[in-house]
């Protein structure tokens, strides 16, 4: 139950930001019966363009008041004159005046509720995002499994600690076959500053595919990767880096490690403790950064009560 309560999707800012507004000219419609004609005329004269999410018309909030219609988005200092010209050519429109409307379509229920306070908008709820926000994205059996894998990562962090390493553990899993592909921990204290737990894990995955670059000291006997026979290796040549795999790591990866996961095409990342230098939610959101060619899902706070204890004294 605790995992369910704490597991939180790290969503792109666009899903969590407040509603931005912009000014547009609106006008009153005196005679309701003329509405459809005015709508037709206006949609030709001044289409909504980037404001397609707006409903063109709203019934005034006050009883007995006329309908209001969006005329045009203001462009420059002379736009009132321009709008006035348009309004003159459309019969039945009152004098244009400015109103605030949401400038972008709402992406979540919360944003929708905020947006309609300004002006009625269309809203197509993304079911997947909605379930992530509500915390119902995973089923109970899935949550149990996630917890099990994170427990492994915590064990690895402890194992690293007994070998005088920074206690960060990482596990790479194939979520379809449930195979553990790699078990890793941080090795920075062994002398090479770049051997963070995630970098070690990524190299162990490469080893599992017959590649890999680093040879790890035998002292670090808990580091493991899946070993397949030669025939299996050729048969499973559809494997490509970390494509489709899940990573469980006790602490939020730094920007180097997060970008390594982009390059490795990881499927999903679950981490426990956040970290101010972390790049999957704290200092960056590398996993959903526009511009990068691979995006993935990230969930934080996984068994955080336990992972936080690893970093209490640091």
């Amino acid at each position, binding site marked *: 139950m605790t995992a369910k309560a704490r597991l939180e999707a790290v969503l792109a800012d666009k899903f969590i930001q407040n509603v931005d507004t912009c000014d547009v000219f609106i006008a009153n419609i005196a005679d309701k019966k003329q509405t459809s004609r005015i709508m037709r005329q206006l949609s030709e004269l001044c289409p909504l363009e980037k404001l397609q999410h707006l409903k063109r018309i709203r019934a005034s909030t006050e009883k007995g008041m006329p309908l209001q219609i969006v005329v045009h988005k203001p462009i420059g200092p002379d736009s009132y004159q321009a709008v006035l010209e348009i309004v003159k050519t459309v019969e039945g429109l009152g004098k244009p005046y400015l109103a605030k409307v949401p400038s972008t379509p709402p992406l979540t229920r919360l944003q929708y509720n905020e947006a309609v306070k300004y002006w009625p908008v269309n809203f197509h709820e993304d079911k997947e995002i909605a379930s992530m926000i509500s915390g119902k994205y995973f089923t109970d059996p899935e949550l149990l499994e996630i917890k099990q894998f994170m427990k492994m990562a915590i064990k690895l962090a402890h194992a690293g600690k007994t070998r005088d390493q920074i206690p960060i553990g990482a596990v790479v899993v194939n979520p379809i076959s449930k195979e553990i592909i790699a078990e890793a921990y941080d090795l920075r204290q062994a002398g090479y500053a*770049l051997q963070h737990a995630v970098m070690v894990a990524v190299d162990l995955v490469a080893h599992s595919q*017959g590649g890999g*670059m680093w040879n790890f000291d035998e002292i670090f006997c808990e580091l493991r990767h899946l070993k397949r026979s030669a025939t299996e290796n050729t048969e499973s040549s559809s494997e490509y880096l970390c494509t489709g795999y899940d990573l469980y790591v006790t602490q939020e990866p730094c*920007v*180097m490690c*997060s970008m390594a996961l982009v*390059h490795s*095409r990881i499927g999903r990342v679950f981490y426990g403790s956040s970290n101010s230098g972390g790049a999957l939610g704290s200092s960056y959101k*590398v996993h959903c950064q526009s511009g*990068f060619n691979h995006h993935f899902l990230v969930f934080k706070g996984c068994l955080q009560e336990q992972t936080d204890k690893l970093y209490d004294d640091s």
Partner: protein
Amino acid sequence: MHQEDESHHIVWMKTALCLAQKALEQQEVPVGCLIVNKDRIIGTGGNEVNRTKNATRHAEIIAIEEVRDLCRRECLVERDVFSTSILYVTVEPCAMCAGALRQMGLPLVVYGCDNDRFGGCGSVIDVASNPALTDSLGPCFDTIKGIFSNEAVDLLKNFYKGENPNAPNSKRKLKVVEGQESNHK
């Protein structure tokens, strides 16, 4: 920048381009990199992602590890060597490599063309000079860009014209293979 410095940078960038060319011949992404300390090349690297099946084996990382090997052989203090070296690379370091270079303590990176896909020195994100990362990654590093930019871009274009042999098959291709599975041994 002193004129003398600039002519130095040009010479080293030419060497980096040669390394990129070599990577291309080995069907790796054509990026060339070298680390120079007091007018001496102490490490070189080309992309080795396909050979090692490890997507983090970028030219910069390979060069860093060569320098580490050299420090071990010559009993030099790694930290001192990196903090007095310049890294030359044909393409802007990605966000991963920029993070790595900060941790190794390199003060200056000279590169050719921007990296619009992964750039970590300002093109996509700016890891190189983000002061908020100093606690976790160490000091920021300076950058000089634009030397042999066109040549670096041309090499990349050459590579992406051909297909990356290790990139995953397209879905369409996979379907065909699945359908013909019985014919495959």
